[in-house]
Structure formats: C-alpha cells, structure tokens
C-alpha cells in the first residue's frame, strides 16, 4: 500500500469541483482551476480545523437538543412536553419498544457514534498513523452515509406538527429542542463533509 504513488508525488493536482487534473505548481495558494475557476489545493483546506470546529459546535448544540423538550402534544387538553429521552421512555413504557428502539438509535446512538467516529478519524489522521486505514475509510463512508438519516426526529416533529392540528382535541407543536437537534445533525454532516478522507492515507509510513 505504501508503495502506491500519490498525485503530488507525480506533480499532479486534481480540481475538487470539476475533477480536472492539472499540473502541480509551487505557489498553490493562489492557483485556480483553468476549467471551472475553483481554487486548487492538494488537500481540503483547513480540514482538521473545520471538522473539529463544526464537530465541537455540533456537540454544544447536542446538549440543549437533549435537555430541552422537542415536542408538545396536546390531546383533550392534556399538555405533554417531551424531550427526546422522555419520548423514548414513554414509547417504551406505553408498549411500543420497537419504536422506542428506532427513535433511541436515530436520536441518541447515531449522533453519539458520529461524534465518536469523527473524533477517532480526526485524531488518527492527525497522528498520521497507518493503523487500520481501510477500516477507517469504511467508517468514514458509513458516517457520510448515515448523515442524512439522523434527521428522523426532526422529520417526525415536522410531520406531526403539520398533520395533527385539531385544536383542543389534539395538537402537536415543535419546541426549541428540535431546532437544536436539527442544528446538531446539520453540523455533524458539515463536519463529515469537511473532513478530507485522503488524510487517512497520509500516514508517516507512506511518507517515509
């Protein structure tokens, strides 16, 4: 694996936007793609900083997303505010454990795993270790893939809010928690997007 040549070793650079391969130049800071005009860089610019910043921001929003109630259901005047966890608990207690597991996985497990996975990728890439490179690449693809599936809660709240509007009989309103949850999901997606998976392969071993 370490014997595989990399683009800049061959004096090549690819455009991130249109994919055009052009010649590597020394002052790459001001170079742009001759075809589409996008800035050229060998690796995504400030990938570490961006990913870290977005990930940390996502984590900051994840706390109120879990503490604040995300949804208010009013049925026959009985007002019920639910946070994510209390909703899961209620589903479990009221006899739909399958739904409870789905919601728990989508709202608690997946975001947590994303935080862990992204942190792992960032730290390992930063250390330029050659440890489990293929697995890390797979993990990254997984994180990218499940990114847009984590909006489950937001979709549920949005759908119910739109559908259940029967005045005093039954009413669902979104509460601030769902905004923070949505922000968390968006920020983790942005974080995973700003991470350059090529960094996984930029290990010390390959360089040596």
């Amino acid at each position, binding site marked *: 694996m370490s014997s595989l040549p990399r683009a800049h070793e061959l004096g090549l650079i690819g455009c991130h936007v249109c994919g055009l391969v052009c*010649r590597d130049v020394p002052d790459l800071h001001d170079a742009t793609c001759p075809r589409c005009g996008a800035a050229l860089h060998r690796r995504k610019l400030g990938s570490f900083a961006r990913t870290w910043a977005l990930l940390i921001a996502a984590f900051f929003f994840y706390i109120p997303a879990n503490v604040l109630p995300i949804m208010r259901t009013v049925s026959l005047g009985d*007002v019920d505010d639910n946070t994510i966890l209390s909703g899961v608990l209620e589903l479990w207690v009221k006899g739909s454990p399958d739904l409870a597991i789905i919601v728990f996985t989508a709202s608690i497990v997946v975001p947590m795993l994303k935080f862990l996975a992204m942190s792992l990728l960032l730290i390992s890439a930063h250390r330029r270790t050659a440890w489990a490179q293929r697995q890390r690449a797979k993990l990254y693809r997984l994180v990218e893939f499940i990114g847009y599936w984590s909006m489950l809660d937001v979709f549920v709240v949005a759908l119910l809010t739109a559908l259940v509007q029967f005045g005093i009989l039954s009413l669902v309103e979104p509460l601030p928690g769902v905004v923070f949850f949505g922000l968390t999901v968006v920020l983790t997606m942005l974080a995973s997007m700003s991470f350059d998976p090529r960094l996984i392969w930029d290990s010390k071993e390959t360089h040596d």
Partner: protein
Amino acid sequence: MTDQPKPPQGHSDLPEPVVRQRRRFSASAIWLVPVLAALVGLSLVINAWVQAGPTISVSFQTASGLEAGKTPVKYKNVVIGKVTSIRLSKDRSHVITRISLEKNAESFATKDTRFWVVRPRIGLGGVSGIDTLLSGAFIGADVGESKDAEDEFTGLETPPAITHGAPGKSFALHSDDLGSLDIGSPVYFRRIQVGRVASYELDRDGKGVSVQIFIDSPNDGFVTKSSRFWNASGVDVQLGANGLKLNTQSLATVLAGGVAFQDPAGPHDATPAAEDAQFQLFNDQATAMAPPDGEPRYIRMRFDHSLRGLAIDAPVEFQGINIGRVVSINLDYDEKAQRFPLVVGAVVYPQRLGRVHDKLVAIAQARGEDADLAQMMGKLVEHGLRAQARSGNLLTGQLYIALDFIPNAPKVDFDINARPMQIPTAPGSFDKLQEQLGVIVDKVQKIPFDSIGKHLDQTLADLDGTLKQVNGKVLPEFHNTLKGAQQTLGTANNALSSDSPLQQNLGATMQELQRAARSLRVLTDYLGGHPEALIRGRKADPAPPKPTPVDTPTPPPSGPSQPKGSKP
C-alpha cells in the same frame, strides 16, 4: 506533502493552473461556529438560571390528579410554576409536592400564601373547575400580604371561598346548627347571589355554630345594622289558607343550601354594618322578619283533657298572632280530683305584640301600676282571656295554643306572683264539639225505646191474626174464581185460533174498517182546508201543490193495513 512539484513525466499536455491573486478567508474563521454554539448554549443556561424561581414544597392529602413534571401552578389562571416531583411523607399520611416557581412568582413563597388543587367540583351553587376535566387538575394559588419567606406549605383540601384582596366584607352568623350550609354556599339578597359562605366552625362551648360569610363589593353595603339573615336552604312548602305555597331562593339552594338576608320592613337602622359584624341566623324568613322578640317569658297552662296533636314547638297565638311556642308538655296527677291534667309550658315574646304591648305598658304606667306582664295579664284574664288548645289543621289534627277572650268564661283566680305565670285554660273547640255530641247522645237516650217497642209488639200481634184469616177464608174463594176465569179464557182461545172462520172474517172486517177510516180522514182533511165545500160543494181538481199535504198522511194508514191483508 512536499512543496517540490516534480516535473510531469509524460504529461506535457496537462493544463497549467491559473494563478491569480485572490482574497482568502482565514481557516481559523471556522472557529466562530463553535464559539457561537457555545454562546447559544451558555445563554440558555443563563436564561434558565435567571428564570428559575424558588422551589417550595406543598403537602396535600392526596396526589389525585397531580402529575410530576406536568401539573402547573396557576394564579388568576396564569402559570406561575410547575410540580416537579411528588412523594409520600415519611409517615405516609399525606403527599408532598415539590413545586418550582418561576422567577417572577417569587412573592408566592411567602408565609400566608395558600395552595389548593383545582379539580372539577359539583355542588355548592354550581359546577366549578369544569375546564380541568380536559386540561387535568392544577394547583391554584392565592397570595397574601406577608413578606416573610416560606418554602413549606400545607395545601387546602377545598378551594378558598374568598381570594385574598377581593373587595367586600365578611360577617359572622350564629346559628344553632349548620343545616345544609357548606363552604361556598351562596348568600342571597333579593334572590341575587351577592356572596358565599367562607367558613364555619363550632362555637367554643359547642352550643352553636358560627358561619363566616363574605359579601362581595359593592353589595356588602346592603348589609345594614338591622339586617336579618335566615337559612334559605331547602324547599319551604306551606299549605295555608291561601293555598299551596312553595318558597325557595333558587334550585341551587335546594341542593347546596344557602343564606338570604334582608332588612326588616318599616323604620330601621340602615347604616351599613361594619366588617365582621355579628348576626343571628334564623331558621326561616318568617322568623327572621318577625318583629324583635325582646325578652322571652315563660308561661304555664293546665289542661284537663287530652292534648293529642299538640307538639313541642307548636305556636302560641294571641288573636291570631304568633307570640311564642310550646316548649314542654308534661302529665300531672291531681290527687283530689283523681285526674291526670296536662301541664303545657310555653315561651312567649310579649314584644311581638308590637304596638299593643307598648300601649298596655303605657296604660299600666299611666295608672301608676307596675308594667309587669303578670300585672297586665291579670287584667286580661279578668276580662276573659283564656288559653285554648285549638285544632290548627283539620287534615293533620295538629293543635296550637290560642290565647283568646272567651265570652261568659267562668271567673278564675289569677295569681300575679306565681312564677311561672299560670294562664287559666278553657276547653278547646274540639272539646266543645264533644260537648255538643254529648248533648245529642243525651237526647237520643231520652227517646222511649221501651214503650215504642211494646206498642210495636201489640200491632204485630194483630197483624198476625188478620193474616191467618186471609189465609184460611179468603184464599180458597179466590182460587175458585181463578179457575172459572181460566175456563172462559180457554173458550175464547179456541174461537180466536188462526184458522177459525171468525178470525178470517175479522181480518176482512178490519180491512173494511181501515178503508172507511181512510176515506173519513181524507174528507175531514179536505173539509179542514175548505170548510166552504159543505155549502158550495167540492171544487174541481185542486191546484198542483195542494195534493201534497192531502196525500202525505194517506200512505201511513195504508202501510200497516197492507201487511195485515196480505197475511192470510
């Protein structure tokens, strides 16, 4: 990642990147995002911290309807806090709810704040808290004036009838018993609800109850120093000389009880009563509106006959005016007369006689006598005042005591100094009836049934002799006569049998007779209409309308004749 780009090997046709000066964003600008996120999070924390008010604990008998994390605390229907947890007290006798108040409701954590659970309640003049049927129970709060902080409260089991600072006045009513009153029972003035019962308690000595009522402003001004309060509970049905009378303040009072008040008629002190003034709570409107009773006097009456139908509390009337009531009925034994007289004790209120009492007092004083009731009563007894047990209601046979002047009443001794006062009695109307019945019985007894019976006996003996004669002599003769008659009838029978020639001849004769009769009638009818025909002779055929009256009567006689003729 080396900066030395190696020369392209065999890629000479690759395009060169365009190098131009551009403005660049610093990569570190991205750190603004987590800083912003942290700021938002921090603001939430600060907000929550600023919004958080004091936490208090309120104990209730039961947690029914309460739910941790949900049940709100409301003041004037504005949410001021929330129940955060509910737990049993250590001795399990009650529940303790933790309530976190909002920041702006800090003033509710003071000593005289009251908390109660608002649930739907039915009764006490209506249905309350109906909205909680849908929204679930909530905890109501009412804040007082105290500034002393307090964080442990005992919740009320019923909503307070008066919220703090409500405009109005409270008054105290005294009564023998509570009746059907309850906290929240309405208070009526002219059948409009103006207040409610706030609380009640037994008097210290246990001889009555004190009821605290609250009248809302501005109607509290109608409570004057001379206002009379009465218990408006239940239905007051009166069967009187004016027919059936149903009297009730409202349907609610029938269920939940109530108090009504009004000023007495006539001149009275109309200055509004002061806060917490004391009033007597009468049992009914009539008692309440009666003139002031004044000092009660005890009188005693001795009746020599049965008083079946006289009950305790039966009215004592003077000339038809209720002046008191019977308080005791006791049997006594008179050794001399070997009789069992009844001693009736009664309380009378001379002041109920109003002007009469005043006049009597004035007269007595003018004469320089003692204005004592006994003194005056002595005078009245001299003029024939007697107590009588009269029947008040023919249906139920209830008796009442009437003090009335009896004409030709025998003189009695009246002891002025006797205590209690002894009022002489006279037999009641019922006893008079008995007397009259006695007279009738006496008269009936005077009828000489014996001699009547003897005479009757003699007459019957004579009748017996006559009948014997009839049986022996008259009846056989009569028998022979009947036999003779029977024979004659038999002969006649044979002669009249249907196929005998006599019968046939008779039929023909009858027909002839009828024809003759018809002709005769036509003639007489004609002559009735034309008497001149006797002289001038019959006219030619009469005018067309004429025959109708002539002919009409003709068919009936011919009608019956035809069936008769056709028969044989």
